[in-house]
């Protein structure tokens, strides 16, 4: 087992290197520069922009820049952000709590909601509850978050004035009023994310359960006289866990990828909002840091999922 993990970790090094080269190359080949916002500001002539490009080292060919980035990363230096001229790592760390608070909380809520709904929908297949859950998941799947988000905003913020449009990231959790304000501003973005994520998880749980419900061992258990509830929860559910665990484990890194659209829409200063503004501003060091951390988490969760298979299913062996 530990041998297996060691091999996998070793294998992930070239994977991560390849990922970082690809991302870097895409960023380098994409047009635009960190000052494109000021392109038409006559106070900042083309010569100044060219000079700044040189100072940022953007004149070097991209393999040279990639090598510089990689070597400083190995020294633990993530570089400085072109647009705020301060260390990338500080900027990224500043965003983590907000993303965990909104995206992480939404994900937790989605898991807590989806698994019972999925189980119930499978056990009572084609019942009104199952039909309702199906409709709900299809809506969640097919309606994009920028639409749900805008709709919620118009109804609950503009018309009903229940929730604020502008997310206040300076709020703490110090007093009851602050906690209440936090909950109010989290309500809309969390709802948007929960609707989407619950949809996917529900369908997975349902189909995994259905696969097992028709198996012979279920009939045997029932024939032995075990209560149906116990059969479903102990036998069927445990056996259905593999696909669910895979999905959940592989989705955890996406929490750290933030929710690009939702965060941007509701002005939540999370990692997703940071990623998209950095891409728009050609802020390469920030984009690299975010996508690389994301890649590491992705590779790691893959490993965790594979290890979990062995725990959940004794038939799986690592050689």
């Amino acid at each position, binding site marked *: 087992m530990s041998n297996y993990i060691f091999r996998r970790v070793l294998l992930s090094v070239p994977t991560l290197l390849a990922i970082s080269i690809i991302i870097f190359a895409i960023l380098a080949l994409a047009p635009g520069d960190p000052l494109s916002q000021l392109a038409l500001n006559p*106070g900042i002539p083309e010569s100044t922009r060219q000079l700044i490009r040189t100072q940022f080292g953007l004149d070097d060919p991209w393999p040279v820049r990639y090598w510089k980035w990689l070597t400083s990363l190995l020294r633990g230096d993530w570089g400085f952000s072109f647009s705020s001229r301060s260390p990338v790592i500080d900027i990224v760390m500043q965003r983590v709590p907000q993303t965990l608070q909104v995206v992480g909380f939404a994900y937790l809520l989605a898991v807590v909601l989806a698994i019972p709904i999925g189980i119930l929908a499978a056990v009572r297949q084609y019942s009104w509850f199952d039909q309702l859950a199906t409709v709900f998941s299809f809506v969640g799947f097919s309606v994009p978050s920028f639409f749900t988000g805008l709709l919620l905003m118009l109804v609950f913020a503009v018309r009903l004035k229940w929730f604020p449009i502008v997310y206040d990231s300076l709020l703490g959790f110090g007093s009851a009023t602050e906690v209440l304000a936090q909950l109010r501003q989290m309500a809309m973005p969390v709802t948007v994310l929960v609707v989407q994520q619950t949809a996917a998880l529900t369908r997975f749980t349902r189909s995994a359960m259905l696969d097992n419900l028709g198996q012979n061992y279920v009939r045997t258990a029932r024939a032995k006289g075990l209560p149906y509830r116990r059969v479903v929860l102990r036998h069927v559910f445990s056996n259905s866990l593999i696909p669910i665990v895979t999905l959940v484990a592989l989705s955890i890194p996406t929490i750290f990828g933030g929710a690009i659209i939702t965060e941007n829409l509701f002005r939540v200063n999370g990692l997703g909002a940071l990623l998209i503004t950095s891409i728009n501003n050609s802020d390469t060091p920030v984009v690299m840091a975010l996508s690389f951390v994301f890649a590491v988490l992705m590779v790691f969760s893959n490993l965790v999922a594979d290890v979990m298979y062995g725990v959940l299913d004794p038939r799986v062996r690592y050689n």
Partner: protein
Amino acid sequence: MKTKVLPTSIAVLVLFALVLGACAAPAPAAAPAAAAPEATAAPAATEAPAPTAVPAATEAPAATEAPAAGGKLKILYWQAVTTLNPHLGTGTKDFDGATVILEPLARRNELDELVPYLAAEIPSVANGGIAADGTSVTWKLRPGLKWSDGSDFTIDDIIFTWDYCKDEATACTTLSNFQPIKAIDAVDATTVKITWTEPRADPFISFVGSQGMVLQKKQYGACIGGAALTDAACQAANIAPIGTNAYKLKDFKPGDVVLYDRNPNFRDADKVFFDEVEIKGGGDATSAARAVCETGEVDFSWNLQIPKAVLEPILAAGKCDSVAGGSFGVERVVVNFANPDPALGAKRSEPDQKHPFLVDLAVRKAINLAIDRQAIADQMYGPTGEPTCNVLVVPAAVNSPNTKCARDVDAANKLLDAAGWEMNGSVREKGGVKLITSLVTTINTLRQGEQAIIKSNLAEIGVQVTLKAIDAGVYFSGDPANPDTLNKFYSDLQMYTNGPDGTDPQAYLQGWTCAEVNSSANQWNKGNDGRYCSKDYDALYAKLKAEMDPVKRAEIAIQMNDVLSNDVALIPLINRRTPNGKLKTLMGPTYNTFDSSIWNIAVWSR
């Protein structure tokens, strides 16, 4: 078998999620359809910006005024402040974020007049501040100025700011404002003399406005050159400057929000109304407009540039006033005098390749006559723009009264008939050359609307238009390796907004001289993208450069504008305004052409 299917479907799912996340990022445009036309009459008093309890009354509020001073001023930008060092700023939002803390010697107000900030008075020839020969300017500073950390503001700080930015390795975005300086000398403790490298008519280029804010030498002293970017202490200073203005920094999350509180060492600290100021960034312009006009969550919203059809119902909600005026720039169609035919290969759009039909004045005049500026203004801009025939509209003294550009399709058709361009089907033709043009602009709802109007306008005079739209990041990038930039201009017509940087139009008008024509030899970065070249215009420019008297300079500038207009060197369309929105209860914000939208934030009140 099951185990085979699962990973694939999971991969598909994850991919689906990623694609969804990546594709739909710039979302805002979808909202308008659902926008409610009628405002709910609910007053929603509960939602009004509740002033956070002010426990300790540090400043005695003026008892005579109705609303007590204090509380938090909430400002919303749809772009977020990323640095507070204005000389390293990469967008208006950075200059504005720094404006709350730092000050220049003087700023421009909404009438484009200079208002002294760190200076005690505005230098003029009359008071001896401006040397008659244009070689230097002498500023008198307010006595007893202090930084927010309590230390004294001195002339050394001004000299330091110049030293800091003139070093190219510092990579100041404001570099061009400091380049004309030859020397800065302290005449006495409160008098500073700036000497120019060559005589200049406009002495207010340095240390004035958003690009001239003074940094503290004590804080940034070790940050000249590459250290400004790589040194940890300098990086920390870039996001936490010490300043002289009414507020000082309390908290800053780059790319998100800045919180300021009172600067007790401000010269007029007792006149400052708000206890705290917050500038929140991000999101989109439409919801920013809603936050001030419909929910009243914020006091002030910057640059609500959204199509008229979306903006007007939001403004109608009645909670806010739009603050629009001055000029954000002139939206124009630039005419290419060089031939952009791809068949020419590397000679494409080079100045020596004459355009097959746009060099004909009759064609340019006809296009100018056919475009319906009023329709563009009415349908697309509303309160955020008005038609103009001039390329130079600000300051008011140089806005030419001599030009006319009313739409006249008959006159345009007659012009083309007379010049021998004959209708062949729906397109005019002469000697095998057809009037088929390409019009390029950026991807933007507003601009695509304009493109459509122009296309149908020109169809009426037998000029066919092919439309193309390019991502703004590419179009404005100036990247010499990219064929789709504004600078290269590989099309017949292109449309964008530009305007002068300062009240003196010389630098702006230079952009149509022969010496500035873009070509491969200068990497297309000179500024004359239309490749227009006229002896008359160049002669006027030489005259302008030599003239020092402001009144005569304005006359020459108007003449130059008229040459461009009569020669149809380009087609001015719309004078755009930056429409800011403010709550009705907020007092102080004005529009501003040449300075920050929040230039006078120290005196804002409720």
